[in-house]
């Protein structure tokens, strides 16, 4: 009984982790950017979605849609205000762009977090479930919302797979992650591809934020934790590898759920962190990394 409960809860939380990490890893794969404002962007989507849904009485779906748009807007802002100026900067030596993008997005993430804290206080908010009710799944009473969230996550990940592997734009993304210079030589403009990947990232991060608000609840104090967990999942799976991130999301999700159920909820993040340290030492390229 408990095993089944762990199986179901772990599946849903892992799907959400996976969705949140996929966009993060795609940006790294395509443009080499580690976006430490990730948690902040999810936070914006979650809080604005919650705010619209609860104060204008629009229902959870419209709220979620506005939240996703807000996440997308925030992702664009991050790209145009912080990332692109650093990438194009002539004052900075090219070798230091990476370090500056890390510090720049870190600062940007803090600005977002403080602003959200100012606007919405730091009380965690939970969105009204999009799919109310409880389903009896082989004797385990599971909220319908939880099942639907896992389903939405996987549907979106499936769509993403189609987009990347079956469309022309997606193939350009793939090519950019393999050899950006070759792609430019073939006459494709990299900046357009970057814009596309940031659009995909914004939608994914926004959706993940909104779903998180509806599943577990989010507060402005969580932003750092969200970034750290996406960062760890992505490194665990191998930087830039989408399938690696998904595998890692499940490893982390289940480790956390098992710890929370069987040992103690307070120890929840620790085994995953230890595993991460271990993997990084033994196999720095991550589970499915290319390098």
């Amino acid at each position, binding site marked *: 009984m408990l095993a089944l409960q762990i199986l179901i809860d772990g599946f849903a939380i892992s799907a959400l982790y996976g969705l949140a990490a996929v966009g993060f890893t795609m940006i790294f794969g395509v443009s080499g950017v*580690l976006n430490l404002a990730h948690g902040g962007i999810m936070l914006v989507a979650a809080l604005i979605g919650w705010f619209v849904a609860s104060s204008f009485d629009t229902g959870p779906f419209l709220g979620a849609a506005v939240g996703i748009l807000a996440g997308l807007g925030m992702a664009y802002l991050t790209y145009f205000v*912080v990332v692109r*100026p*650093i990438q194009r*900067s002539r*004052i*900075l030596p090219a*070798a*230091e762009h*990476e*370090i*500056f993008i*890390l*510090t*720049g997005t*870190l*600062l*940007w993430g*803090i*600005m977002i977090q*403080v*602003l959200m*804290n*100012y606007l919405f206080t730091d009380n965690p908010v939970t969105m009204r479930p999009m799919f109310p009710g409880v389903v009896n799944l082989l004797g385990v009473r599971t909220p319908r919302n939880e099942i639907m969230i896992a389903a939405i996550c996987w549907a979106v990940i499936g769509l993403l797979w189609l987009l990347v592997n079956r469309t022309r734009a997606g193939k350009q993304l793939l090519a950019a992650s393999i050899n950006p210079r070759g792609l430019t030589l073939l006459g494709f403009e990299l900046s357009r591809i970057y814009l596309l990947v940031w659009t995909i990232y914004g939608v994914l991060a926004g959706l993940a934020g909104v779903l998180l608000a509806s599943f577990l609840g989010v507060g402005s104090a969580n932003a*750092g934790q969200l970034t*750290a967990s996406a*960062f*760890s999942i992505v*490194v665990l799976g191998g*930087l830039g590898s989408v399938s690696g991130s998904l595998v890692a999301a499940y490893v982390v999700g289940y480790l956390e759920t098992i710890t929370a159920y069987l040992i103690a909820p*307070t*120890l929840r*993040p*620790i085994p995953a*962190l*230890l595993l*991460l*340290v271990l993997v*990084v*030492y033994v196999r*720095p390229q991550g589970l499915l990394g290319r390098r």
Partner: protein
Amino acid sequence: MALLTGSRGLWIAALVIAIGASGPWWLSVYILGVLTSAYYFGVFAMSWDLLFGFAGEVNFGPTFLIGLGAYGAAILNSTMGFAIPICLVFGVVVALVGGVLLALPALRLHGPYFGLVTLVAVLLLQNAIVIFAHITGGEIGMTVPDVLSISANVNYWYAFGFMVVSAIILFGLSRSAIGLILQASGQDAIEAAALGFNVTKHKLAAFCVSAVFSGLAGGMLVFYLGAASVDTVVDLSIAVQIIIAAVLGGRRTILGAALGAIFLLLADEALRPLGQLNTFVVSAVALAVILFFPDGMLGYLLHGREQ
């Protein structure tokens, strides 16, 4: 850079030290308190700069070393009741051992991987403090029975003297052959290794120096505040503030990091009327500095002169 090393630099330094040391005669007790914390922060930022600016490694976990030193000293003092100097030495040893344990494997990694491992180290330390709450006081923190001094002036001089001594040692180190090798390995590790320098050994040395000063500063901060808590010495937001201070003041200058820390804490106080938004403004200023003057305040000053 000639500005800082020539005889004129010595005069400027002497003047700054004299003005700083005379603080208690012309500053209010309130400002003295802010500056005392700022000086310890300055040491944090300087030891971070040695690792980031020179060795080129993003250490997201300066508070891992600071927290080890602070809690090591605080626990020895509150459980065994040893005198403060012994506790400080113990704290430094704890920070050094923890630093080496972290650095030995971590230095095999580079860039984002190194950053992530140091970040995880902080999260693990934070969790450990909460789990062993019966010794560490958990999330609330612990008080220590002894304090450095109850006089604001004496505390100020302790902090100022400590910062000046640290600045001289760290700055000297960065100008020495070791500092140059570190800088070379930060910019091009392969070429530095090809020239016959043991890159890992030098980076490990930098990490150890960073650990000693961070741990000592963390311990002294605890005995100044009379308490150790996650929020003051371990939390990631402290790490972020250290990073902002060092980048704001100017990377690869060591002294700039201290300048940045003092500026940051004073700006934080000055912007207090803004309430929660003061962090927003400070971060925005730091971001603007990164985008437009990546060399930081001191770097801009020095490079401006050279051109």
